[in-house]
């Protein structure tokens, strides 16, 4: 005989059973993950197991030499989507502090990379030659040196003479800052006469006063021998930094890391950023990068760069090491005022690589991020197995 209590139990169990079945169905549906709902009624887009169509027979893959069989493979997103790869990346990066990271090759040197000048080029109205190429001699200049800018016309690889090359200069606040006439006579900043590389120099005026740094845009108009115009625009940073490196450095191993201190002379209070790269003595192996930043009052101070010990330990290259590129900037405002790069300024003592820590830094933010982001890894892992 069924009591009311027993009936309630049966009812409860039945309800829970239905819920459980629905939950299991939901898990299985997530597992297949075949449908991405969309706002309207477009055909669903394949999600994790994307239903890619094979490329047509004339697809570029064939032209690239990929076999047709390979071209017909179904394209899929990786298991775990972005989340899993991001988690792996964060755990790897957590081994070093944010303020110091390893360099694999000289090409990785971030200080050098940011200072490479990349010319801007422009052709005629219908893409015809000659091409006008414009560029500053440096990405940034520091007072009191003049800014030097170059321009040339070229047809193919051959530079051609211009009838004239002129430019207007304005600041990043669109204030007019001057007119330039480029020259190719070996004077006033032009290194070589008649090499068809035209040069002009610019010295900031009143428009730069009161600002640690100003970006200047140079709009160059070159007139060809055939009286055609070519227009191209470049720009550069001009800085009035509030601190200078004095040239004094010292180094020590502290807590298993290599600390290099650089002395700075501050002429006005502000926030100052220092970064440097460490190489072996041959200059062929870039080892590590480090940075620091501090608010400093006027006067002489030491800024400390800590090259994380594990980086040097893992590279296994014994010292001495060379402080290859050192960049100081006044970072009180944007744009930052950047000092000239100091190169090869200091050689450390001959520390053995084994002297540095072999401990991972274990950045807590990155490790936490790795754990969290893995929860977004879709239909993978123990949940599906359990389902």
């Amino acid at each position: 005989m069924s009591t009311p209590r027993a009936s309630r139990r049966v009812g409860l169990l039945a309800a829970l059973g239905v819920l459980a079945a629905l939950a299991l169905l939901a898990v299985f549906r997530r597992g297949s993950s075949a449908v991405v709902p969309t706002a309207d009624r477009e055909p669903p887009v394949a999600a994790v197991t994307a239903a890619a169509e094979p490329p047509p027979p004339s697809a570029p893959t064939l032209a690239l030499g990929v076999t047709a069989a390979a071209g017909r493979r179904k394209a899929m997103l990786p298991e775990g989507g972005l989340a899993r790869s991001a988690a792996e990346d964060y755990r790897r990066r957590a081994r070093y502090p944010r303020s110091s990271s390893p360099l694999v090759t000289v090409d990785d040197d971030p200080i050098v990379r940011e200072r490479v000048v990349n010319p801007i080029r422009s052709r005629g109205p219908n893409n015809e030659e000659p091409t006008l190429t414009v560029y500053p001699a440096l990405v940034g200049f520091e007072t009191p040196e003049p800014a030097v800018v170059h321009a040339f016309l070229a047809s193919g690889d051959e530079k051609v003479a211009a009838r004239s090359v002129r430019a207007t200069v304005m600041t990043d606040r669109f204030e007019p800052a001057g007119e330039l006439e480029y020259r190719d006579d070996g004077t006033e900043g032009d290194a070589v006469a008649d090499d068809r590389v035209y040069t002009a120099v610019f010295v900031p005026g009143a428009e730069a006063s009161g600002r640690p740094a100003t970006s200047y845009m140079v709009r160059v108009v070159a007139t060809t021998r055939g009286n055609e115009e070519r227009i191209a625009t470049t720009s550069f940073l001009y800085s009035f930094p509030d601190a200078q490196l004095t040239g004094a450095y010292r180094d020590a191993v502290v807590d298993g890391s290599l600390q290099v201190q650089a002395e700075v002379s501050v002429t006005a209070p502000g926030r100052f950023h220092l970064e440097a790269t460490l190489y072996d003595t041959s200059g062929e192996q870039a080892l590590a990068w480090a940075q620091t930043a501090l608010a400093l009052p006027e006067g002489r101070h030491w800024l400390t760069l800590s090259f994380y010990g594990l980086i040097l330990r893992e590279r296994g290259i014994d010292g001495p090491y060379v402080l290859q590129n050192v960049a100081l900037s006044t970072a009180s405002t944007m744009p930052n005022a950047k000092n000239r790069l100091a190169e090869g300024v200091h050689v450390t003592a001959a520390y053995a690589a084994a002297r540095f820590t072999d401990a991972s830094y274990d950045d807590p933010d990155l490790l936490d991020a790795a754990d969290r982001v893995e929860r977004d890894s879709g239909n993978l892992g123990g949940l599906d197995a359990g389902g």
Partner: protein
Amino acid sequence: MTLETRREGRRNAFLAACLLVLSTAGTAAAQPCLIFIHGKQTNTNTLTNWQAARDYWKSGSRDAVASATKNFAASYYVIGYNGTDTYWGAGAAGEVANEIVNATNGGPDGGGNRCALTFAQGGTFWVIGHSMAGPVMDFILGNNDASDPNFNFNGPYDTVAARLSLVVTFGGAHRGSQGADLACGQGNIFCSFLAQFIQSCDTATYWLRSSDDVQVRSFANAPAKNVYLTGGYEAIFGASACLNGEDDGIVQHASQYACNGSATASYNNSNVCNNSNKQESSGFRNLDTGHENHDDERNDADRDTRRAIPTGIWNCGASACTPDTVVQSAMSCAQLVAALY
């Protein structure tokens, strides 16, 4: 042990199993809150009127927010900022940073939308950014530590970096835009004329040019969290002829994919820079490229072919798809995001 006791025990075990299944299903449903950040604007509408920021992601019945969130199955938050400011300005990076923190605290966006879980509750947060949102996020995530040059310059960058899981950019102007160069007087009259339709040479545009001295990488370090890169290769008639290599009509591949070297280098889908040749030594990762132009990327309007790029995300069988392989025949950037979690 009586029969009744054994039955009771079995019932309890069943109940426990049901509860476990239910709780497991809840955990399995974990998905990120998507935070949307628009691109450059010619006025401050998206800052002063949230609906303008929301509409940025729509085109007719198409809605990138709906698609990316799997028809709102994932929670979302839409940020509006001053798209005429410099990428590093208080109206741009500062506003964005503060809004991201608000989102991660469970606060509402201008339309009342909230992330389902706060950071304290274990929530995860992905930023989905278009165009200028690229350098805005590069600046924030590259200045999150006290040792960085512009640490917390005008907002809580450290909190943002700690709380975000990752960023996905659509046509991000990470290295500036040749469209901005054209708007600021670069090049020939034909190109500049077209550029005027795109944007005027205002303060934001000045700092979005491809010149080295205005690049975000000059004022920020590698992003604290990964920035995943997708974009478009569908030309805009006329404008694309003025850009180098493949482009989406406004931003060239060298910038969409945050390449090291020249910001105006000519790349195609096969040879665009891989993950080892980015503007910073870490933190930038390729996804793919779609046959979408710069507008299509943000509004889900064009669900078109997607192609693999070097070190991208698509696999063909057991290995990465050969660059330029067609990997999808009808998928937008927003739909790609939905497929990633």
